[in-house]
């Protein structure tokens, strides 16, 4: 009896991610959601620019590779082209919360019926570890070598908190993938974000706190500890908005 297998929606090819990177886990959670909801065949994914740029190779559904930050606009076009399709974007923090802030905010404001998986690891990984909009105060990166100085470069962008102020957004939750309990919660949230879209409930965004051992300069287990002890306290987990929570109770 098979008790654990690769989800059908996840391609059977090696991923390029660094050892200890949590993108692999998040890819799997998305693929499991597509499998369990039986929607792989009518799903179209939008890959970002960043570490997960090759996501278009890793998911077995139809995929498009967007310009940096523009995935929510591309997803809007796809969804408007055929509202029967399930459309999701998979974006990192530089992509979504810096160069793509405008597209993110307005897709949420329109309550665009799409699903966004927002992977926040607080760093630009692909370009070699630069400061991200979500890097923590004091965080040392290639472009904040003395630590993020909030006096000169300001404070991190808290995406789900910010979007929760918009009337448009339907479902916003922040999860993490640093331990089994949190991964189970992340799975639940991601699945719900897709289910919302199937039910026409509108804009869902799941922020997934993720680890980058390479550019946090920590071994993988230490990176998960930093996620638990330093990152989660700054970015509290939980549901920030659920427009349909009441009717489900």
């Amino acid at each position, binding site marked *: 009896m098979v008790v654990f297998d690769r989800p059908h929606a996840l391609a059977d090819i090696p991923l390029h991610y660094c050892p200890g990177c949590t993108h692999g886990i998040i890819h799997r959670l998305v693929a499991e959601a597509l499998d369990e909801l039986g929607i*792989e065949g009518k799903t179209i994914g939008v890959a970002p620019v960043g570490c997960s740029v090759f996501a278009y190779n890793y998911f077995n559904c139809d995929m498009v590779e967007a310009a940096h930050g523009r995935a929510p606009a*591309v997803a809007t076009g796809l969804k408007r*082209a055929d509202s029967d399709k399930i459309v999701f974007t998979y974006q990192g923090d530089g992509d979504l919360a810096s160069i793509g802030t405008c597209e993110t905010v307005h897709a949420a404001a329109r309550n665009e019926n799409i699903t966004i998986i927002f992977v926040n690891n607080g760093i630009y990984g692909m370009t070699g570890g630069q400061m991200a909009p979500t890097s923590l105060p004091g965080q040392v990166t290639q472009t904040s070598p003395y630590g993020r100085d909030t006096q000169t470069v300001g404070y991190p962008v808290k995406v789900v908190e910010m979007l929760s102020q918009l009337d448009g957004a339907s479902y916003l939750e922040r999860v993490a993938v640093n331990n089994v309990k949190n991964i189970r919660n992340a799975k639940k949230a991601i699945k719900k974000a897709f289910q919302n879209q199937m039910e026409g409930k509108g804009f869902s965004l799941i922020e997934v706190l993720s680890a980058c051992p390479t550019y946090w300069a920590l071994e993988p287990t230490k990176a998960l500890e930093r996620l638990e002890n330093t990152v989660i306290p700054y970015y509290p987990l939980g549901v920030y908005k659920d427009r349909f929570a009441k009717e489900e109770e």
Partner: protein
Amino acid sequence: MANKVIMKGNEALAEAAILAGCRHYFGYPITPQTEVAAYMAKKMPKIGGTFLQAESEIAAINMVIGVASAGKRVMTSSSSPGISLKSEGISYLAGCDLPALIVNVQRGGPGLGGIQPSQADYFQATRGGGHGDYHLLVFAPSTVQEMVTLTVKGFELADKYRMPSMLLADGTLGQMMEPVVLDIGEVKTYEKPWALTGTELKREHNIVNSLFLQPEELEQVNFARYKMYEEIEATEAMYDTYLMDDADICIVAFGIAARVSKNAIDAARAEGIKVGMIRPITLWPFPKKPLLEAADKVNSFISVELSMGQMIEDIELAIRCKKPVSLCNRVGGMIPTTEDILNSIKKAAKGGNA
């Protein structure tokens, strides 16, 4: 005889897009093309289409990419500064081999420039505008009727070749009213097996993408695209001629500049000067062949442009610099008068520079 209706250029092109099967329009307000969006905002909801005012030109062109990826006819329209903003997305359209129609109702530049007519985006349109090696199919209407026919042609050829098309109009053509025939006949459509329509678990996944990290692969992708461009240059160049049979002087002009030039040619002919015109209708591919042939017959060329002299470079290249080419131009939103062009013709007739 087909029914004629009076329409503004901007509205005529919008109606033509709908007739061509376009059901998705994304734009951002900018003068002098706002009538396109206004028309689409009225019409699209009534016919099951999408009109969406995007949060920026950048978002609008990326929404276009989304619909184009899904295999449906889609367009955006803007004016010069907005086209600069869309240029990133246009490069992605070209790099992803996606068909779409982009309308540029040009205004004076650079920078915020002005809101009066211009043709100063010629380089931007014919050289691509964004980063990387690519071309757009560029159509230059000179009447409201051509706003209609070339919009349809733009959609058809974009689909045929899987590349973006641009309708390069100007503020005058966008704003002017003329009688048009909207009976456009049968519109050509093309199969799009590459489109993102969902695998239904029955086929391998389709990927729309412009990223090729292996240089050998990216080189081959560029070679293949330029091989297709060669075919387009050989077969799709469009132009019109006016009184060229006995011409000693050849005016080259497109769009609104060609209309004024026609008046100047008539005036010059009345004074006995043998002048004619080659009017490029496609700016890319540029009608090189008729120009090169004309170079063996005429004494000189005059490029009439609403720019500081952009198309003139393509004329010189097309005729291999066999004959002198002078420039007759107004810029910044100004349009040359019949007298301006007539003076250039007279100078050319005396063998001097315009």
